[in-house]
């Protein structure tokens, strides 16, 4: 089943996530949607699948204009989306998850549904026990379940948003085979990715999106360099950076053991020198986040010691780390950093470590105005945090950081940012590093890791699989390490 | 309720007949245009204490042509915005020239109101603020008291229970503890004991227990639940429940048990028609009849000769259901056997003639102290200010323990 998007605009406040996108996919086509993180791919697909409502534009399914207000609307028109994190209810069983989205108030015939699940699974060579709780399934298996569910609900257009992020290589091969088979049956498949190789491997045609707009459409195969240039607006050169002289150790971690419900890290050692940048690579949930939590005092270390700036912080709480100049910027800017509903002025007042009881709002506003200008934030002292675009939120967070930090910990520092913002963020971070701040950051963006780190620690299943020198490593090597392969 | 309506119409006729005969000092005046206020603690249709006052007011209004202004549910839970003195002020502002505050609990408010409105006659029913020889004489010229000698009603109720019980165990569902309620429990106990020993010639001591719920009616969260209290009594072997509260839970619960085949009975309280909820096991009900006293008071105010008096009115022994005369009544219920009924009539006659005076010593309080010495007959003062339950009753006294 073919569909067409015409002049789709999707604005979030001042942010234009999609700015006049045209896209046409024929029945039976395997279509790639390529673009860097934050280019607007996911937003476009959420518009197509009814999660977001478009600001303007037109959606045609089989040549007929349609209005998709909710995911259920989209499903009625045969459009189903497989999200980056499959939308399954973990405590429920496989069969419950399979049934859960079925429309209509009438009672579901569980036995029949189980039979159909079995039939579908058999057809694609999947293997499910309908009574297993889904939490026991791997991410790849959850994806498979979700695909079967969408098929059962009558999907004729299948959208997959970065589906290979959390799955193993064999699962990816199986996924691609399934998608090819579906396309052969007339299913339109939209494969959203920022991974060039995968799009090249799977798709027949690719649309490249940059900064919310379509910058090109190509039949595949097509020279990779051409696609990269479209994606980034110029070929990236990796490996050139100023070499900063590294000073004495700022952060010394030894024998760190820390765990949460999902991951556990044991016996983690790390020494970060003044001005050094350490990248943490790995699949989501491999242990990077809990290490960052431990290093910032948010999570208590079960074993080991943490020293920063020569002080032993192991027994201290988060505020002790903060006082010692150790600060952490998690990835969720509006969840763990900014306060939605408060203005920029209020944020600056909160960040200023003043103890005066009264607030002089006039001078606070003035100061905020200066900070806003200094940090190129698109907003006014009265703007609320949530009204800012992601890039401006990140600028605000950086503007709120203490001066003279000893250690700066970050998680996905440029996720969702446009190129300009990302470059600015790193400019700021590198300035800090020149002041001697040690930086440890986790990222899923291999280019970013390679470009800005001195060393990269690759996490796999809660331990450091390898430490590589960012100057001599490559996207390829990192990619394999992240997948758990030590040597090629 | 239709029978009571009919009886009320009849009463009016009887009343007019009496007026024609120019008998008694409660001859109704023509009070057209006169307004009196009535402050009730509970709902005006509670089938109990508050309704009895409300109907007395209606009775007066019908006979005299005066207008009654009623504010019901005046208690801190139902009406948190106003205290009794504020309500009295409202009623006076609406033209009331006489205010009835009809609950023991309204003491503080009505004293304040009487003080603030010295020109408006007021009545605090069940109180003692106008009793010169009492303990709490307030000396307010505009505040009188009215009360019925319910101790007789309770003696009759207790006798009916004593004549009926098979297990020799009687439960009394009490409201809160004060002089009045202890007086009434003691009366019921004395009546039950007398009839148990005299008519049934039982020698085993009667088991008589009281549980106080904490207020005149159930306020969830503030009081014990009378339904639960009733069932606990029945579970522990009591087969007759006497109610001392404004509502009918004891009768209703006993009725439920009876319909399941248990041999249990109950004596409700406060309202002439109270037996209607479970007539078959109802032994009868003592009730207040405020009409005659209130009529007299309205008359005196209209005539300009109101005096702040403390009235403690007794029953009309000739006819305990003559609502034009008696201050308290007794109607026997269907649950009373013919034998018991005869004994009860004998008992009532004895009370009326004065042959039986149960408040005669020797009687001890619960803590063993002497209430009445051997042969001593209680004075009004001793009866009114009952400090404790009597020896022989299981239950808590206000000043005991």
């Amino acid at each position: 089943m073919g569909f067409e998007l015409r002049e789709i605009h999707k604005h979030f406040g001042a942010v234009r996530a999609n700015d006049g996108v045209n896209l046409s996919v024929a029945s039976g086509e395997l279509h790639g949607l390529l673009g860097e993180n934050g280019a607007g791919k996911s937003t476009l697909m959420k518009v197509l699948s009814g999660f977001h409502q478009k600001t303007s534009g037109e959606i045609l399914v089989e040549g007929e204009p349609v209005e998709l207000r909710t995911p259920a609307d989209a499903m009625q028109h045969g459009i189903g989306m497989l999200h980056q994190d499959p939308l399954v209810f973990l405590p429920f069983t496989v069969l419950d998850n399979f049934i859960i989205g079925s429309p209509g108030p009438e009672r579901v015939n569980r036995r029949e549904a189980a039979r159909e699940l079995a039939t579908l699974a058999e057809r694609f060579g999947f293997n499910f026990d309908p009574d297993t709780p889904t939490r026991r399934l791997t991410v790849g298996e959850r994806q498979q379940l979700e695909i079967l569910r969408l098929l059962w609900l009558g999907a004729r257009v299948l959208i997959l948003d970065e589906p290979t992020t959390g799955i193993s290589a064999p699962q990816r091969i199986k996924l691609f085979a399934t998608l090819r088979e579906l396309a052969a049956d007339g299913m339109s498949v939209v494969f959203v990715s920022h991974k060039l190789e995968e799009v090249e491997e799977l798709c027949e045609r690719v649309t490249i999106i940059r900064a919310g707009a379509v910058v090109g459409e190509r039949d595949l195969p097509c020279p990779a360099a051409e696609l990269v240039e479209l994606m980034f607006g110029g070929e990236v050169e990796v490996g050139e950076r100023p070499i900063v002289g590294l000073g004495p150790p700022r952060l010394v971690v030894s024998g760190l053991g820390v765990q949460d419900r999902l991951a556990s890290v044991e016996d983690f050692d790390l020494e970060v020198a003044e001005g050094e940048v350490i990248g943490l690579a790995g699949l989501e949930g491999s242990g990077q986040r809990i290490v960052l939590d431990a290093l910032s005092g948010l999570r208590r270390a079960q074993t080991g010691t943490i020293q920063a700036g020569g002080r032993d912080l192991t027994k201290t709480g988060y505020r002790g780390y903060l006082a010692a100049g150790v600060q952490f910027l998690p990835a969720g800017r509006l969840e763990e950093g900014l306060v939605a509903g408060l203005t920029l002025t209020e944020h600056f007042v909160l960040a200023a470590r003043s103890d005066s009881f009264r607030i002089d709002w006039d001078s606070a506003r003035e100061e905020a105005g200066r900070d806003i200008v200094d940090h190129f934030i698109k907003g006014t002292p009265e703007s609320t945090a949530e009204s800012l675009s992601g890039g401006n939120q990140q600028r605000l967070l950086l503007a709120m950081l203490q001066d003279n930090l000893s250690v700066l910990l970050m998680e996905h520092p440029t996720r969702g940012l446009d190129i300009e913002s990302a470059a600015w963020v790193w400019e700021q971070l590198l300035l800090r590093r020149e002041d001697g701040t040690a930086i440890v950051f986790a990222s899923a963006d291999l280019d970013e890791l390679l470009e800005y780190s001195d060393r990269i620690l690759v996490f796999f299943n809660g331990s450091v699989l390898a430490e590589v020198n960012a100057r001599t490593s490559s996207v390829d090597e990192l990619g394999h390490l992240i997948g758990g392969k030590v040597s090629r | 309720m239709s029978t009571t309506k009919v009886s009320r119409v009849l009463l009016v006729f009887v009343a007019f007949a009496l007026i024609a005969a120019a008998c008694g000092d409660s001859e109704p005046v023509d009070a057209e245009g006169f307004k009196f206020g009535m402050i009730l603690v509970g709902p005006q249709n509670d089938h109990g204490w508050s309704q009895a006052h409300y109907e007395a007011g209606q009775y007066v209004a019908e006979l005299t042509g005066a207008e009654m202004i009623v504010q019901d549910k005046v208690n801190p839970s139902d009406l948190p915005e106003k205290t009794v003195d504020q309500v009295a002020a409202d009623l006076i502002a609406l033209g009331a020239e006489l205010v009835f505050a009809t609950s023991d609990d309204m003491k503080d408010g009505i004293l304040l109101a009487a003080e603030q409105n010295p020109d408006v006659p007021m009545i605090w029913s069940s109180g003692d603020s106008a009793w010169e020889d009492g303990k709490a004489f307030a000396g307010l010229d505009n505040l009188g008291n009215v009360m019925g000698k319910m101790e007789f009603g309770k003696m009759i109720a207790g006798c009916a229970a004593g004549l009926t019980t098979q297990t020799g165990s009687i439960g009394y569902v009490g409201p809160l503890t004060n002089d009045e309620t202890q007086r009434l429990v003691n009366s019921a106990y004395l009546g039950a004991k007398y009839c148990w020993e005299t008519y049934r010639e039982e020698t085993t001591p009667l088991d008589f227990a009281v549980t106080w719920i904490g207020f005149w009616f159930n306020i969830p969260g503030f009081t014990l639940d009378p339904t639960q209290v009733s069932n606990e009594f029945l579970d522990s072997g009591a087969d007759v429940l006497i109610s001392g509260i404004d509502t009918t839970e004891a009768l209703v619960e006993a009725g439920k048990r009876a319909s399941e085949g248990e041999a249990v009975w109950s004596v409700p309280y406060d309202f002439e028609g109270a037996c209607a909820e479970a007539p078959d096991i109802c032994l009868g009900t003592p009730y207040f009849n405020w009409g005659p006293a209130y009529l007299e008071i309205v008359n005196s105010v209209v005539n300009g000769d109101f005096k702040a008096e403390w009235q403690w009115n007794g029953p009309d022994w000739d006819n305990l259901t003559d609502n034009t005369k008696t201050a308290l009544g007794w109607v026997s219920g269907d649950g009373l056997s013919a034998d018991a009924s005869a004994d009860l009539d004998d008992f009532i006659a004895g009370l009326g003639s004065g042959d039986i005076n149960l408040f005669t010593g020797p009687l001890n309080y619960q803590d063993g102290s002497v209430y009445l010495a051997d042969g001593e007959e209680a004075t009004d003062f001793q009866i009114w200010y009952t400090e404790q339950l009597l020896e022989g009753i299981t239950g808590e006294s206000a000043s005991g323990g």
Partner: protein
Amino acid sequence: MNFADLWKRSRTGVFAVAMALVVGILLLLVAGANPFEALGVIIDGSLGSTARFGDTLMVWAPLVLAAAGLLITFAAGLWNIGVEGQIVFGAIAASLVAREVSGPTWLIVTLALLAGFAGGGFWAFLAGLLRTYGKVNEIFGGLGLFFVAQALAVYLVLGPWKRPGVASTSGTEPFPRESWLPTLGSTRLSWVAVLVAVIAVLVVFYLLRGTRFGLRLKAVGKNMRSAFLLGIPTGRYMLAAFALGGGLAGLAGAVQATGFHHKLVPSISGGYGFLAILVAMLAGYAARWIAPIAFVFAMLAVGSTLLPLKLGLDSSVGGVLQGVLVLFTILAQGWQARRQNRSDGVAAGPPEPPIVPGEVG
């Protein structure tokens, strides 16, 4: 702010009041009353004379105190449903002073009010400890403590503080006159109660608008995680919010005991805590709206007690009118949130519960 802005901001409220009026009129018609006559009775009954105006203010004062306290806990993102219990405990503490301390009125009254503040604050602090250390949601902890406070009041009234020879839930013996809040002339209006309420609103207004404490509290309320990451000791701030908010509720209890009932009654709170939650919600959690909205509620409460006397209506009509007003305000807020969501392009879901104060101050 120009007129269009003003309209945009206030139209929800205007709409809610208009709808509530329409439905209220319909209800009165159904109840067989002339709505305008009923409205007249309510207005006359609450404002018609100096005494009635005083009666209304005496309901207004505790309502404002409790609502002002709730603004603090709402700012911290806490649903302090236990406010009723804090009123009761404050009243108990004030009663203790009023019964036991003798001396000049100014001394007893000052001590009683302080005791009320401390008592209410302590009771809320317990709910706060349960929340921050026991991980007990403040709604359940607060309700539980409310029942405990209630039971304590009943126990005191029936037990240690009972009237001589009497044990009735109708209350303790009236306090000595020196312990009563001073009144204006012969009215029942206590200028102390009104003054305390006015000061409370001003203090809360200033705290939430002009101080670092208030701003941090708001940050905690809107996003505890971010607030914590910003270095705010969130637990301590929540406890402080509980103590302060509960303290104001306790003052309401002290006013009820020493200024209104002049004794301790088990239902001393008069339900004003729950009513204050509605006042705070209706005010959009803004301190400047607390006083007028509480006044409307007080007018409805006091004025409608005359409905049964003058029009033969049930006195619960006033409560029904209050309920209608609240219902439509919440509905209107919901509609507004929904409209905003739509214009933001998010697929329409249920409106956010109005936990997070919009604009305080």
